[in-house]
C-alpha cells in the first residue's frame, strides 16, 4: 500500500530545508493545485463543540449532548463511494474562532482516525513540533486506517438529490449515538461480492430505487434474517402489521420496514435504525463521555482492533471513561498523542463482551486490542 503524503500549507517564510525534512511532505498552495490523483478534497468544519451565542455555554443537539462539529462522517461518505480514495480534509478559515494547539491537534487526530489527512493550515505551523509527533504516531499505526469499522448497522446511499442532507445527517447523528455504521453507495453495494456479514440492519436511502441486482442482494440479506429500512418494500412479500411508525414486510427470516410517513428527521431516523435493530447488537458503548466520538475498527481476521476516541471539547480532560465492547478481547494497549509510550490496560470480561477503564486523556486516545 503506497504511503499517502501528508499535506501542509507552508508559510512563505518557511526555509526550504525545513520543508524538505518535514513529515508533512506535500506542500499545497491556496488553490489546491497539484493534488495527487485519487485524492478527494473536502472542505470540512473546524472540529470542536459548537459554541452557542451565549458566552460560556454550548449548543445541545437533539441527543441532549453538546453539538459537535465533526468530519468523520464526511470521510466515511467519501470512502463509502471508493474505499481506496484518499480524503484530504481542508478546514479553511476559522472565522471568529480563536484556534488553540488542541484545536490543531484535534483536526489532525480526527482526520487520521478515519484514515484521512488533514491539510495542515498555515497558522498551525507554529505547533509543528507537536503536530509532527502526532503525524509520526499515526504513520507508525498506518495499518489501523486500513481496518474496517466494527458495525452492526449500515447505510446504503448515493448522497444525491433529495436524500443528500438526510443521509449525511444520519451518518453524523449515528456517530453521536455511538452507532458505528458501514457506508456503501448503491453501486458499491451491487459490485461487492457480498454485503458485510457483521451488518444486521441496512438503511437504504438513495435517490433512486435499487437495481435488480442490488434488490436481489438486499432480498438475500433479509431472507437470512436481516432488517432493512427502505422507503419502499422493494416489491417484497406481504405486509404485516404496522408498528413503531413503519409498515412491516416479512421475508424469509427477516423483515423490511417501510416508513408510514416520509423520512424527514435525521435524528429520528438514526434513532430508528439503532432501536429497531436493538441495542443488544451494539458493538461499542461509552460511559462518562460528553463531547466524544468513537471510531472502532478491526482487522479482517478479527485478531486485532482499535478503538480511537476523539474528544471535541478541547481544553478539558475526559475522566473515568469506560469503553464497553460487544465481544471478548484479551489485551489492550493505551495511547495518547501526549505520551511517548503505550500503557497496558486491563480488559474485564462482561456479559456484553469486554470493558476497559480508560485513563484520563484529552483530545485523542487509542486503545489497541488483541483477541
Amino acid at each position, binding site marked *: 500500500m503506497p504511503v499517502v503524503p501528508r499535506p501542509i500549507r507552508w508559510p512563505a517564510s518557511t526555509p526550504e530545508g525545513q520543508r524538505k525534512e518535514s513529515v508533512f511532505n506535500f506542500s499545497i498552495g491556496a488553490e489546491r493545485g497539484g493534488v495527487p490523483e485519487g485524492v478527494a478534497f473536502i472542505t470540512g468544519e473546524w472540529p470542536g463543540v459548537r459554541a452557542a451565542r451565549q458566552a460560556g455555554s454550548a449548543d445541545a443537539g437533539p441527543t*441532549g449532548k453538546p453539538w459537535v462539529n465533526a468530519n468523520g462522517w464526511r470521510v466515511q461518505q467519501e470512502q463509502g463511494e471508493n474505499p481506496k480514495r484518499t480524503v484530504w480534509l481542508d478546514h479553511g478559515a476559522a472565522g471568529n474562532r480563536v484556534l488553540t494547539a488542541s484545536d490543531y491537534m484535534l483536526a489532525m487526530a480526527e482526520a487520521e482516525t478515519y484514515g484521512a489527512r488533514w491539510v495542515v493550515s498555515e497558522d498551525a505551523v507554529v505547533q509543528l513540533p507537536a503536530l509532527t509527533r502526532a503525524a509520526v504516531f499515526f504513520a507508525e499505526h498506518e495499518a489501523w486506517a486500513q481496518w474496517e469499522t466494527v458495525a452492526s448497522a449500515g447505510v446504503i446511499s448515493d448522497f444525491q438529490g433529495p436524500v443528500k442532507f438526510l443521509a449525511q445527517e444520519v451518518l453524523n447523528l449515528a456517530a453521536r449515538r455511538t452507532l458505528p455504521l458501514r457506508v456503501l453507495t448503491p453501486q458499491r453495494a451491487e459490485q461487492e461480492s457480498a454485503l458485510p456479514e457483521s451488518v444486521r440492519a441496512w438503511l437504504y436511502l438513495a435517490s433512486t430505487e435499487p437495481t435488480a441486482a442490488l434488490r436481489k442482494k438486499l432480498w438475500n440479506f433479509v431472507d437470512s434474517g436481516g432488517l432493512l429500512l427502505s422507503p419502499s418494500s422493494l416489491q417484497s412479500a406481504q405486509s404485516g402489521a404496522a408498528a413503531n411508525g413503519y409498515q412491516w414486510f416479512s421475508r424469509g427470516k427477516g423483515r423490511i420496514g417501510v416508513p408510514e410517513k416520509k423520512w424527514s428527521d435525521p435524528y429520528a431516523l438514526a*434513532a430508528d435504525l439503532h*432501536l429497531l435493530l*436493538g*441495542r*443488544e447488537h*451494539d458493538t461499542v*458503548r*461509552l*460511559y*462518562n*463521555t460528553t463531547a466524544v466520538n468513537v471510531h472502532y475498527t478491526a482487522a479482517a481476521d478479527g485478531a486485532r482492533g482499535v478503538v480511537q476516541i476523539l474528544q471535541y471539547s478541547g481544553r478539558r480532560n475526559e475522566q*473515568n471513561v*469506560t469503553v*464497553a465492547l460487544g465481544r471478548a478481547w484479551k489485551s489492550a494497549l493505551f495511547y495518547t498523542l501526549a505520551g511517548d509510550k503505550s500503557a497496558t490496560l486491563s480488559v474485564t470480561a*462482561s*456479559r*456484553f463482551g469486554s*470493558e476497559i*477503564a480508560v485513563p484520563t486523556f484529552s483530545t485523542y486516545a487509542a486503545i489497541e486490542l488483541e483477541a
Partner: protein
Amino acid sequence: MNCMHRRNFLRTAIAAPFLPVASLRADAPTAPVAVAPCKSYGKELLPTLDEMFDQLGGLERIVSGKTVAIKINLTGAPSYRLGHDPAELAHWTHPNVIGCVMHLMNRAGARRIRLLESPWNTAEPLEQYMLEGGWNPSDLLNAATRVEMENTNYLGSGKKYSRMMVPGGGHMFRGFDLNHSYEDCDVFVSIAKMKEHATAGVTLSMKNCFGITPCTIYGQGSPKDEPGVRPAGGRGPFHSGDRQPAASALPENDPSTPRQGGYRVPRIVADLVAARPIHLTVVDGIESMAKGEGPWIRGVRRVSPGVLIAGTNCVTTDAVGTAIMGFDPMATRGTAPFETCDSTLQLAELHGLGTRDLRRIEVLGTPIEKVRFPMRKV
C-alpha cells in the same frame, strides 16, 4: 440585579426557612418496617428478601391476583457512571433486587408485573435504555411469568394521560397527569436506592416517585399548551419553578411560592406519593453512594451500607431508612440531612400518609442500630 429579581431572591432566601410547616401529625398511620443486613447481590439476596416479606405478613396478601406496577430508579443518563463502576452499584436500583422481588411476587401469585421508569430525556423503550446502561432486560422479563416494561416519561402505550388527584389539595399541585400505567394497576411498588440527595436531603422510596412525572408535560422542553410527543429535557421546572407544566395539566396551586428547589421538590414528592399511593416499598441499600443522588453531583463517593429495607408504608419505611443513614427522621429544615430543604418525610406526614416518628414505628428483623450506616461519617 433588577427589582423583580431582587424581590424573588429575597423571598427565596429569607422567607423560605420560615414558611409554616406544622411540626408533627400525631394521627398519621404507622406500619412495621423490615430491616435486614445483606452484604451482596449474590445468593443471600433472595432468601433475605423472602424473609423480610414474611415479616411484613407475606406478599400474597398484597399481590396475589393483582396487576403490580413497580417504579424502579434509573436516574440520570445510562452513560453516567460513578468512576468506572456500573450504575447499579451507585445510583440505580440493582437489577438483582428488582429481579428477586419480581420472582417472589410471581411466586405469591401476582397476575402481571409492569416495570416502570421515566428515563432521562427519551421516549425509547425501557428495555433499550437498560441495554445502554449495560443491563440485559431479558433477565427481568424472565423473572416472572407475565412481565411488561413501560417508559412513563411520555404517553407511552396509553391513549391518554391519567389524572391523579392529591387528597386534600396538595402542598404544591392538586393533581398530576401521569402515564396510564400508574393508574392501570392494583398495586404500586417503589423499589428505590438508599442515597443522599443534593436537593431533597435523602432519596428513598418517596423521592423515587419524583420520576413518575412525564417530561412531555412537566419537563423543561414540554410545549406550553399540550403535552409533547417526546420528552425534552429534565424536570428542571419542578426544581426552579421557572415555568408551569403544559396547560393541559393542572398548574401549581400558588405560583407566588418560593422558586427554590429545596422548597419545591420535597412538596412535589409528598404530593406525588399522596396522589399515587405506594403499597409496598423496597429500598436497596446494599451498594450505594454518599453525598448525592448521582455521579453528576460534586464530591460523591461509593459506599457499601449492606442493608435492605422494606415496608408497606412509604413514610415509615423512609423514616427508618433515614435513621439507618445516620440522620434523624424528625429533623426539619436547617438540620441534616435537610440543611437547605424541607423534609419530604414531614410533608408526607402532614398529608396523613404515615408517621416519621420512630417511637411509633415497629422495626422487624434487625434493629436500626445494628445496620446503621452514617452516610456522612463513613
